[in-house]
């Protein structure tokens, strides 16, 4: 038998496995029910124990792409080493805002209930620390909040606005798309609202339902002049938020709300940034690119471990040769303008792409990525670009867990794409 490359083997196997993958979802349900009830935390590795997280000081300080801020007066910022502190994501967001308020006198933080911490505690204690004239509550007035922030930013100030849930961003859609995004262009560069950052919790939480679990990033993709950023962890949240605040363009910063408490890392205490518009390769690979951002990265990581070592209940559904497939997991981080180069280079290498996000498929971020990748990697693609997304329905309360892409759906997509 002549030696075959991995993709050729995969293709050879494809026809044999067509049947098995189509019943993947059903069979899982039956086998699990037949054996024993799952443990309280489920079988999957939890977010808290995900290998994506940097839980030691050493690994935290080696975060790729990290740019240390000037911290001449920072006591722990000497050359021998920097301090880290265990933080979850809301604490890291608070740390970033505290850094911004301390370093920039014109910076203000405002939004609904932010003065006493906000619903997710991201601004806890900031008004006590920096004064109520710099960290203040607004009325329930989203369009007004963003309009107000645009005015403030157009005066050269740093305006950090919070929209309490990204589901409430729609009343402000006009202000964001028509005023903030276009301010620089329509004034011929005379004015800009570069100091505006709109923070807002996003994505599903398991029980948020229609108005507390949406992912609106796709709606803003066509608004040239705007940036959209989604962090995946505490270290990322602090660095990317400080980058967003310093960036001279209006930025929407979408914080996956389930990660506020569940993701915990050792976060450097000094000021640092992580560059925008740079994707990060979390695990390098050669056979398949999995691209995501925010919460689904953890789910994708779990799916990767299922692929390599499938649990007994689904073992027969994951073809043996696929288990050694090298998956390249990429965190897109900045949704707009996104890092086309890194993604295209990866797909040119692997020939296969699965995009995962929680927002629906139609008109979603995955659609834009898929079409760009098809344009740029057409001759290298071994399989159609696969999108694993929320369903094109509202986010239902009762079935939110089914709406959100889970590890089995991602595993199914990986198997299907690898065996195409």
């Amino acid at each position, binding site marked *: 038998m002549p030696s075959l490359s991995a993709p050729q083997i995969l293709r050879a196997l494809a026809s044999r496995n067509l049947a098995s993958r189509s019943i993947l979802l059903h069979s899982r349900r039956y086998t699990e029910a037949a054996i024993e009830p799952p443990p309280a935390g489920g079988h999957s590795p939890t977010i808290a124990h995900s290998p994506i997280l940097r839980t030691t000081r050493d690994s935290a300080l080696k975060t790729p792409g990290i740019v240390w801020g000037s911290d001449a007066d920072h006591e722990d910022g000497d050359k021998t080493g920097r301090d880290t502190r265990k933080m979850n994501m809301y604490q890291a967001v608070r740390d970033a805002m505290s850094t911004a308020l301390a370093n920039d006198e014109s910076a203000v933080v405002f939004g609904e209930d932010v003065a006493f911490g906000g619903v997710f505690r991201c601004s806890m204690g900031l008004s006590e620390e920096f004064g109520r004239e710099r960290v203040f509550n607004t*009325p329930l007035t989203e369009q007004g909040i963003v309009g107000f922030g645009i005015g403030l930013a157009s005066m050269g100030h740093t305006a950090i606005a919070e929209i309490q849930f990204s589901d409430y961003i729609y009343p402000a859609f006009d202000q964001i798309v028509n005023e903030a995004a276009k301010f620089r262009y329509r004034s011929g560069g005379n004015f800009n609202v570069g100091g505006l950052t709109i923070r807002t919790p996003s994505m599903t939480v398991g029980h948020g339902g229609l108005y507390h679990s949406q992912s609106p990033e796709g709606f803003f993709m066509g608004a040239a002049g705007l940036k959209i950023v989604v962090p995946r962890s505490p270290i990322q949240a602090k660095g990317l938020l400080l980058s967003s605040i310093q960036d001279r363009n209006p930025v929407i910063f979408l914080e996956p709300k389930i990660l506020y408490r569940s993701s915990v890392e050792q976060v450097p205490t000094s000021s640092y940034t992580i560059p925008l518009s740079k994707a990060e390769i979390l695990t390098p690979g050669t056979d398949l690119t999995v691209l995501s951002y925010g919460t689904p990265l953890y789910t994708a990581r779990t799916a990767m471990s299922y692929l390599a070592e499938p649990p007994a209940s689904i073992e027969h559904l994951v073809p043996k040769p696929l288990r050694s497939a090298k998956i390249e997991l990429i965190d897109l981080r900045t949704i707009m*303008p996104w890092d086309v180069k890194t993604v295209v280079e990866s797909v040119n290498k692997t020939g296969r792409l699965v995009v995962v996000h929680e927002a629906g498929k139609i008109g979603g971020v995955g659609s834009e990525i898929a079409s760009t990748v098809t344009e740029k990697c057409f001759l290298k693609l071994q399989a159609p670009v696969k999108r694993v997304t929320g369903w094109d329905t509202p986010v239902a309360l009762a079935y939110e867990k089914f709406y959100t892409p889970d590890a089995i759906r991602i595993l199914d997509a990986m198997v299907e794409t690898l065996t195409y």
Partner: protein
Amino acid sequence: MASALRLAARRSFAPRHAFTRSIQTTADSASLTSQVPSDASQPFTVSLHEDSFKSYRCDTPSLDVEVTKEQLIDMYKQMTTMRRMEMAADALYKAKLIRGFCHLAIGQEAVSVGMESAITPEDKVITAYRCHPFAVLRGGTVKGVIAELLGRQAGMSKGKGGSMHIFTPSFFGGNGIVGAQVPVGAGIAFAQKYLDKKTATFALYGDGASNQGQVFEAFNMAKLWDLPCVFVCENNKYGMGTSAQRSSANTEYFKRGDLIPGIQVNGMDIIASHQAVKYARKWAIENNGPLLLEFVTYRYGGHSMSDPGTTYRTREEIQRMRSTQDPIKGLQTYIEEWGVASEADLKAIDKQVKAEVDAAVEEAKASPEPEAKDLWTDIYYPGTGPASMRGREREEVHHY
């Protein structure tokens, strides 16, 4: 029967007319109450008509106004310049040299010029799409505005904004979305307060925009935080093609701020406008919080260039306003009756203004259109945008 019911239902929605004594909008009802000095910069006093202002939760501005000869002459020159410029824009539009959207402020000159006469360059102004006069008065040029309308490089936004998007350091633009500039104005006022500056923001909107939800959001925030923001409603009686009575349950726009006091002003009389803005500015910088200022005014033309402006109001109404309440004619009457200048002096100004505007139009027309590369600039802060952007055709890709 059915049609009778429909008729009855319709009648119940018929606009209710207020029978209260309304503000008068003649442009020349002030009277001289002191001698006009020979020195052009020496102030003298005139008395406004007693129905020039109405107030809500505050006193009305004083009816006695101090003016100087040179101030009146300046106002006259500015108003005629604004009208000439808007007429030039009208002609250029009809010649198909200006394309797209264009909203002219002919008839409303007493608002923009009156406002500029009572504020300082440190004060900030933001308005909606009827913005050309403000752009010039706040530090721009006629050439810059006309070139912007033509989409030329010499335009104040480099030809990339157009009619509704013109800015100067103290003028935060023409803004195209009805009402969207009002909360932005509140944010600007907050920055002024934050910096502890004795300055005010004037956020303008029309009677049509006054029914937008975000206008009330801005009112609330401004009052809550006592921002030095003057909300200025230019009530020209028609929101596009719908009269104020047909669109607003309460047409007394100066009373719509709830706890925010308001003044209604005869917006056709430049001296009344000047006095009201002076009062409003003082109110704002003395930490009294926001104020609503409603100018009752009138636009002679349609809402935009595609609206002849005669389908929802009679030609007679327009003609009556033009002939009896024109703000420029009103000021002309003041100047001539009070002996500030002669008819011949004013004719000379008219001639000079016409020459200046004509020259500006020619210079604007001579300016080249923006270059293709300008399509890709000013979208993101340089160096922070996408690596490339698509152009007009498949092969044209701009790499930064």
